[in-house]
């Protein structure tokens, strides 16, 4: 008996397995192909990628709202779709929870009726008490009699979460459900979601293109771009060393530089590159590139220091001489465009701006650590 359990758990290595190919027909720009193969365990997995990468399409395929042409999707060993044997469970049969980007609450029903919608088979009393339990778990029980039009966006997302979980789903698909909410509200909802899942241990696939959500939630990240999985693993390894140039934009790398490798110092673990169309050189971490090859460097605007005088005695290996081109205040960040062989975007705080007395046209020095320069594949 014990043996059998062992074998079962060995076979059931991943909670959700999916490999499929989905083609959306269309003209050159509209055509799109999603081709993925991945497995996730219980707990939260982040599906991360820029808009248009195919994240929502991927969730629709898993939920059964779209039918990929060739696919094998299984949940806890049960087949949801297998094109080889022509098995295709309808969304109704899959018993998943799926939260869309919009709360998609039924506008003509009250909050409580929305939540109990999925409990069609139980009797009236059970439905009401179960709905109440879920509303309480997500702290919206006081809204039970309201209509969706009468509650706030954050409340609507909490209700949508409660509604999707009321059916005792076997897995959760969350498609940027907290878009547009402030980070305090987000982390409160995350806490409630984590608490809810602590005992249940369901696999949760959480789609986002926002870095702060990845940092707040994640245990594991799958990065997707243009319908393909391009990296997966721990958040820092996937996101802090982006391998594809497009992904870097989403991960918050504002600076992209084209450069040519000058010389490789393997013993130091670094190499020097020269920026395209200028004499400026940078020291960057060692990559798989020989001297003379073209590489791309990605640098976060927040990782670059700005100095009003030429700095000395620093450990940072890259100190570039430049002039401020323009400055723009965006909320609590000042975006400076600095010309130093190439155009660099640098983020500073308004306080730093005032104390340094920075003005456009002023001579400044950029300080960039070697390991703030990330090599990016084309």
């Amino acid at each position, binding site marked *: 008996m014990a043996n059998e359990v062992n074998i079962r758990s060995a076979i059931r290595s991943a909670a959700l397995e999916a490999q499929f190919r989905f083609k959306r027909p269309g003209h050159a720009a509209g055509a799109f192909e999603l081709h993925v193969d991945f497995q996730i365990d219980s707990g939260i997995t982040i599906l991360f990628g820029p808009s248009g990468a195919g994240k929502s399409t991927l969730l629709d395929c898993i939920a059964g709202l779209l039918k990929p042409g060739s696919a094998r999707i299984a949940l806890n060993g049960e087949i949801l779709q297998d094109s080889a044997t022509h098995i295709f469970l309808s969304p109704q049969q899959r018993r998943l929870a799926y939260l869309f980007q919009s709360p*998609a609450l039924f506008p003509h029903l009250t909050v409580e009726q929305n939540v109990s919608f*999925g409990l069609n088979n139980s009797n009236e009393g059970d439905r009401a008490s179960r709905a109440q339990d879920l509303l309480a778990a997500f702290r919206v029980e006081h809204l039970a009699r309201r209509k969706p039009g009468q509650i706030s966006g954050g409340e609507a997302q909490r209700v949508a979460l409660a509604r999707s979980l009321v059916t005792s789903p076997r897995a959760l698909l969350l498609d940027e459900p907290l878009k547009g909410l402030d980070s305090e509200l987000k982390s409160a909802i995350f806490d409630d979601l984590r608490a809810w899942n602590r005992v249940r241990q369901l696999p949760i696939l959480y789609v986002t293109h926002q870095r702060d959500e990845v940092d707040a939630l994640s245990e594991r990240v799958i990065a997707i771009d243009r319908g393909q999985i391009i990296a997966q693993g721990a958040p820092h390894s996937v996101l802090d060393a982006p391998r594809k140039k497009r992904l870097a934009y989403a991960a918050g790398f504002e600076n992209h530089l084209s450069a040519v490798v000058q010389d490789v110092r393997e013993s130091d673990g670094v190499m020097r590159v020269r920026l395209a169309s200028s004499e400026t050189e940078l020291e960057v971490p060692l990559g798989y590139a020989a001297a003379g090859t073209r590489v791309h460097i990605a640098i976060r605007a927040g990782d670059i220091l700005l100095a009003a005088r030429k700095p000395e005695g620093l450990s940072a290996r890259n100190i570039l001489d430049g002039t401020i081109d323009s400055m723009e205040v965006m909320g609590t960040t000042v975006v400076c465009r600095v010309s130093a062989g190439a155009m660099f975007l640098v983020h500073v705080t308004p306080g730093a701006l005032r104390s340094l007395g920075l003005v456009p046209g002023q001579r400044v020095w950029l300080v960039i650590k070697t390991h703030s320069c990330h090599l990016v594949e084309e």
Partner: protein
Amino acid sequence: MEALWLSLCLAFCVAAILLVVGTPLAYWLSQTRWRGKFLIESVIALPLVLPPTVLGFYLLVVMGTDGPLGKLWTAWFGHTLAFTFAGLIIASVLYSLPFAVQPLVMAFESVDTRLLDAGAILGAGRWRIFRQILLPLSLPGVITAVVLSFAHTLGEFGVVLMVGGNIPGVTRTVSIDIYDHVQSLDYAAANRMAIALVFISFAVLSTIYAVNRRVWSPWPTK
């Protein structure tokens, strides 16, 4: 007044039949991904562009004693279909079909598909999604469809003249009656009927538009 009562009966029957027939048809049109859908849409919209005499002429041919539908009808009921109230209903249903189907299709298509998806994910079958989500959210469109088919049938003339003729109490509707009075230069009688029709039409339309605005309010803030 007999003619007015007949017209109201006809309009009521046609609106009821169109609600029953038009709803599934409109649902199918709004959901299908069939490429030939435009052909069905065009056929349904034909009465909008054809003169009523063309539709009436072919209906008369089909429903006449030698027509396929006429023969079938005579075999079943023992009397002809043309120039009867039943024949008038069939003709009016076809003639008013686009006025029922188009608002319904528009209403069904304007419901956010994510709401229907949400229903499916929560385990509701097609019928339950239709009954509890799609239909309640399409209520303004349903009301518009019923009112338009009612009002359009109430005011029709050409098709009735072609298919129904002018039999008092059977096929002599208000519009025919007015025409008759004018032909016999009885302007006073024509005016009585015409005014009644104007008031009834106005009352129906204004009531519905007043109600419709309130029906719109549970609609989500988009």
